[in-house]
């Protein structure tokens, strides 16, 4: 194998990993505030991609497509929280997780009715001519995906560290009881978490739409994002980003050095290994504070 092939495996892994990280980030955000593993996360990605296709076909310009798709899905996310999670908020986390599984099936079914089963795509944002990097090739769209991951992380930091609402949000993560004594409504923060998680998922879906928009894409992406989230310890933002890239590069190198037939098995194997050896995840603190 020459060095350009090695570069290509790394680039392929980074490009896939960026998407996994973005999906995983939504899991972490919602888990932190609500203690729920939100299995609708993959469907948020799907809705982002589907709505991007719909808006694009309405003839809207690209920036509008991105903003509208992300906002629409954020609203859907908040709406789903209000109608399904909030009424059951006194239930155990297990019950809530089962509710999210039901929701994901419902969302997928509705998407099937609206958009049908054909795979859809929108034109790539910046053309389809590959960019050469150290002998490897990257599509401009893959740079968009990594850019979307970077923007999401940056925006999260600004929101959480520099705004009052973000501080209230963090307070809720650290101590729900204390926060509500300070006049912060954990209920509203839970809705906010779903809206933000949905928005981040949708952004992933929008930048992925030139590759694929299909009613059932959320399952595969949701699993990979979940693996990244668990690997990162479920609560850590840097952890999930790094883990997303680990899964992506693991898959790409697994294809290169073991066998391409075991790509999906490799990411699940990494997950099992981590759960057995380090159940708190690579970057988690065991018994760490969560609400």
């Amino acid at each position: 194998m020459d060095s350009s092939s090695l570069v290509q495996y790394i680039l392929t892994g980074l490009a896939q990993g960026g998407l996994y990280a973005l999906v995983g980030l939504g899991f972490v955000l919602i888990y932190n505030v609500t203690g729920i593993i939100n299995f609708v996360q993959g469907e948020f990605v799907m809705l982002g991609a589907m709505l991007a296709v719909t808006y694009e076909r309405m003839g809207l310009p690209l920036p509008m497509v991105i903003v509208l798709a992300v906002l629409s899905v954020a609203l859907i996310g908040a709406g789903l929280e209000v109608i399904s999670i909030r009424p059951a908020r006194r239930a155990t986390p297990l019950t809530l997780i089962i509710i999210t599984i039901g929701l994901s099936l419902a969302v997928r079914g509705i998407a099937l009715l609206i958009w049908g089963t054909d795979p859809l795509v929108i034109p790539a944002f910046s053309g389809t001519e590959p960019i050469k990097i150290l002998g490897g090739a990257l599509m401009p769209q893959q740079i968009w995906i990594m850019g979307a991951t970077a923007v999401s992380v940056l925006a999260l930091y600004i929101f959480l560290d520099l705004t009052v609402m973000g501080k209230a949000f963090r307070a809720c993560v650290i101590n729900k009881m204390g926060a509500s004594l300070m006049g912060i409504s954990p209920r509203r923060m839970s809705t906010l978490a779903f809206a933000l998680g949905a928005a981040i998922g949708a952004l992933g879906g929008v930048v992925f739409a030139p590759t694929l928009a299909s009613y059932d894409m959320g399952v595969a992406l949701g699993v990979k994002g979940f693996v990244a989230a668990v690997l990162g310890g479920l609560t850590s933002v840097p952890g999930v980003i790094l883990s997303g890239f680990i899964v992506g590069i693991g898959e790409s190198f697994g294809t290169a050095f073991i066998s391409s037939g075991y790509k999906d098995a490799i990411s699940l194997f990494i997950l099992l290994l981590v759960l057995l050896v380090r159940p708190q995840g690579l970057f988690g603190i065991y018994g760490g504070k969560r609400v």
Partner: protein
Amino acid sequence: MKKRMFMLMSVVMVFVLVFVAGCGSGSTPTSTEKKPFVIGAVFDITGAASSLGIPEKNSAQMLVDQINKAGGINGHKVDLKILDDKSTPAEAALDIKQLIEQDKVLAVIGASTSGASMSMVPIAMDKQIPMVSAAASALIVRPASEHKWIFKTAQPDDLVAKVVVKYLKDHNLTNVAFVPVNNDFGNSGLKEFQNQAKEAGINIVTVQKFEASDTDMTAQLTKVRDAKPQAVIVWSTPPSAAYVAKSFKQLGLTMPQIQSHGIGNKAFIDVAGDAANGVIFPAGKLLAVDTLPSSDPQKSVLSKYASDYKATFPNQALSTFGGHAYDATKMVLDALKAGGDNPTPAGIRDYLEKISNYPGITGMFNMSASEHNGLDTSSMVWIKIDNGKWTLAQN
């Protein structure tokens, strides 16, 4: 106020019930009308293979609707029960059981993919109900002596492999890479290709598999590039087949990219975009129907199907898969016609086995006791994708 609303609602409900019941009794079939013939179909309408299953469902339904509109078969309407196996073999097995046990169908059409069809075979054999699959794998009907009740209409993969191997030999491409999807379709294609390439002296330098749900095949194709083949053969269906083409373009590979008959629908071109240009693949004649010489024995059947389909489903593109289901449905309907007022599963089976010199959408069928597919290499032509369009390639 509330009470009055309730009263009002109740009265309305009663009226609705009476009205609905009245309608029901009005449309009860009279005893003079002949009993409908019930046949079943299982297609991959949702899930990974839906780009195959939807045109198949449409084609079968269109044909049955046409027959019913023209008065049915021997005065009997045809009742086609279509079930969705969600692209999974397990669901396909449940579906065929339901069709046979509950709907008492005379014959079953489907499924769309080899995996789903394989899981239906033992059930059709056990219940002795004729089944006509629209899927590719030769193993569905072979050996015919052990598959008495099973027929199929799509080109078998060994036939396609033969066409591809001949092309490679004709063009002196002796070192090739094989890139199949990791499912029944890809693995069966790989096995057939390996057998025939060996006989023809063609060397497979590397085999790189991918999953049907993958969207980026650059890692696999990087390994292919390192193996330095003269041509790459891809064996899959859209959308994954389209991602191979995209990754192929991303890496700037320049050797010929030969895909399989699995990409004979518009979804491939839609998803691959400009990366589809230059891809060649063997396919049934349907895709090149407009450029086909009128001397071709299939020409009139193909033209009729193409214009009917476009008229019935104006928003959908033609696909060879729809043709597989159309052929399967048409054969079963012909068999029903031959059965008079009381067609039996055994009678249908015997009729299907005697079909010969039969111009279908997929090819000229010649069934026999030892051959339950009945197609030869003349049913395929080479198609090249040029500017997002299918064109007849020079052989």
